[in-house]
């Protein structure tokens, strides 16, 4: 198995008949992901694209098809319900793409998934991909290249950018994971770094953070304390004016906490090479790989 997903991943798509759900289901199938079921309440019994069976509930989908992973493309007002439902159905991994989920919902959801021992990725994340094998979410399959660099990022499209630049430089990825930029998320940097450290396919890791919160600082300390594999990083938002919101609810500079400068310093102090531009990650990774 790769990081969190792999050839044994059997995917159920929640919201399979929606605009985004249907588009990305086809993309995932084309990439080779085993999409075994879809869920749209009221459309149980139908088939998506004359192929994937659709169920009214995740529970039925899991029981009938043996799905072990769920991906969520439902509107924000139903996203918390969808995560609860997936968690109760006993899948191992839930990937929530939906953005705009109220944090008040997430407080309850995170307590529930952690109690049930289910891994949640997101919400408001692009999902994850193991190049040449399997993708869950919305990461564009054509930009990745099979290789040995783990990519983990709080951002969506900035992740694509970094992957794209690595691939253009001939540097392949073992897995790319977008953890999402919301203030409350499931899987965090430390979870992903732990997985990459244990993953035999991964030789070095690129970590992409942004302003707001202290997750990057916590991750930096984890890297120096617990990791043997080299990690390099980039922080977006160096020019963001203090106190202004930059789209992501998580990207708020509050007082002295969470500035790009602070995070970059935490990286440096803990042995994480810091890229000034996304493009500089390529050189840093090449150097890290040559050392390891």
């Amino acid at each position, binding site marked *: 198995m790769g990081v969190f997903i792999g050839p044994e991943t059997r995917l159920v798509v929640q919201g399979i008949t929606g605009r985004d759900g249907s588009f990305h289901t086809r993309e995932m199938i084309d990439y080779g992901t085993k999409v075994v079921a879809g869920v749209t309440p009221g459309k149980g019994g139908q088939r998506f694209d004359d192929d994937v069976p659709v169920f009214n509930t995740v529970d039925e989908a899991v029981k009938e098809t043996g799905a072990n992973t769920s991906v969520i493309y439902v509107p924000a007002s139903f996203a918390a319900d969808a995560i609860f439902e997936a968690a109760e159905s006993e899948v191992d991994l839930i990937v929530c793409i939906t953005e705009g*989920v109220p944090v008040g919902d997430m407080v309850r959801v995170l307590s529930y998934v952690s109690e049930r021992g289910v891994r949640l990725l997101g919400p408001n994340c692009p999902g994850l991909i193991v190049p040449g094998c399997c993708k869950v979410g919305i990461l*564009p399959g054509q930009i990745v290249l099979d290789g040995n660099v783990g990519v983990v990022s709080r*951002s969506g499209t900035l992740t694509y950018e970094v992957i794209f*630049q690595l691939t253009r430089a001939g540097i392949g990825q073992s897995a790319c994971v977008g953890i999402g930029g919301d203030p409350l998320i499931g899987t965090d940097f430390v979870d992903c770094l732990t997985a990459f450290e244990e993953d035999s396919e991964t030789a070095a890791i690129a970590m992409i953070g942004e302003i707001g919160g202290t997750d990057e600082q916590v991750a930096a300390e984890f890297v120096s304390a617990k990791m043997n594999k080299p990690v390099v990083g980039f922080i977006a938002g160096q020019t963001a004016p203090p106190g202004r919101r930059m789209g992501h609810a998580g990207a708020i500079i509050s007082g002295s906490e969470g500035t790009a400068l602070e995070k970059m310093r935490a990286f440096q102090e803990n042995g994480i090479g810091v890229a000034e531009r996304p493009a500089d990650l390529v050189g840093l990774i090449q150097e890290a790989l040559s050392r390891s």
Partner: protein
Amino acid sequence: MNIHEYQARQILRDHGISVPPGEVATSTDEVLEAAKRLGGEVVVKAQVHVGGRGKAGGVKLARNAEEAREAADLILGMEIKGIEVRKVLVAPIEDIVSEAYLGIVLDRPNQADTIMVSAEGGVDIEEVASTMPDSIRKLVIDPRYGLLNHQAASLGHYLYDEVGAARQAASVIAKLYSAYRAVGATLAEINPLIVNDRGEVKAIDAKMTIDDNALFRLPDIEACRDLDTENSSEVRAREAELSYIHLDGDVACCVNGAGLAMATMDLVKFYGGEPANFLDIGGSSNPDKVVCALELISEDPKVRSILFNIFGGITRCDDVANGIVEATKRIDIEVPITIRLTGTNEDIGVEILKKNGFEALVDMDEAVKTAVARGR
């Protein structure tokens, strides 16, 4: 979304918290009349979404209605941290025996809501946190059980030795938590929470921040939004479901995704330019969003170069390309446009652009460099 003190006070009142009376006014005459109704001895407070009002002269005491009018004359129209004061709150002066702090915030590291109380109220909690950190007591609320009665009681006893005040405070804490949850807040503060000379515990100043993502189910709270205090471009952007923040530079950026947008701004700066804005057209974009984005940019007279940086994922390149074509037909754009377009449906998008006379770049650094150069 931030709401005004007077709006937060009303929410507290709706949840049963004792808040002294008060009236909102937008003119000196209204303030005079309000002060008369409230007994003359009042405080006049600027209603703006920034901290440090008091230091900036936005809060003034008045011994009578005429003084209140004079205070309002000074406050209304003044600028506090760049925001013009258009409304003031007029409230009677309370006889304050003691001032405490009470706040509930979304606590990211604990992934829960946390209540903070301190007997050292009336000043910024950041200041208390740095000067008297031991005076702050924190309680992380388990979302599965909510705030338990004994927890509120315990915080009440922590704040006040006198049992009557302790019980009133426990009740205020429980009600504030109800209010916080009901309005989808990520911050609710009462500072100061006072005991007056009759032993009553009351909320004097109130501050609330609402989770934008929760507003769709709270039309009453959405209605609290004060469009007057926001940049009109930003209001229009929000209505079009764009994330837009106006800045002072000359290179306009139009990007999909907040992280990439920030990285793009950073790169503009890196290559010697100044970003004119933060603009995230988001995921699942439709061509109309791009049209609105270009409209907003074209209205900024400082802009000398426009940069699109689109990496398609859930956003499709063809949608953005169509938007650009559509927008440039509708709006007269006089500055150069640089487009970087890659990712989902890239081929179709590039094809659309080419047909309409636009060039599309693939490399982000190259695109930023080009846009900065074109803005010179």
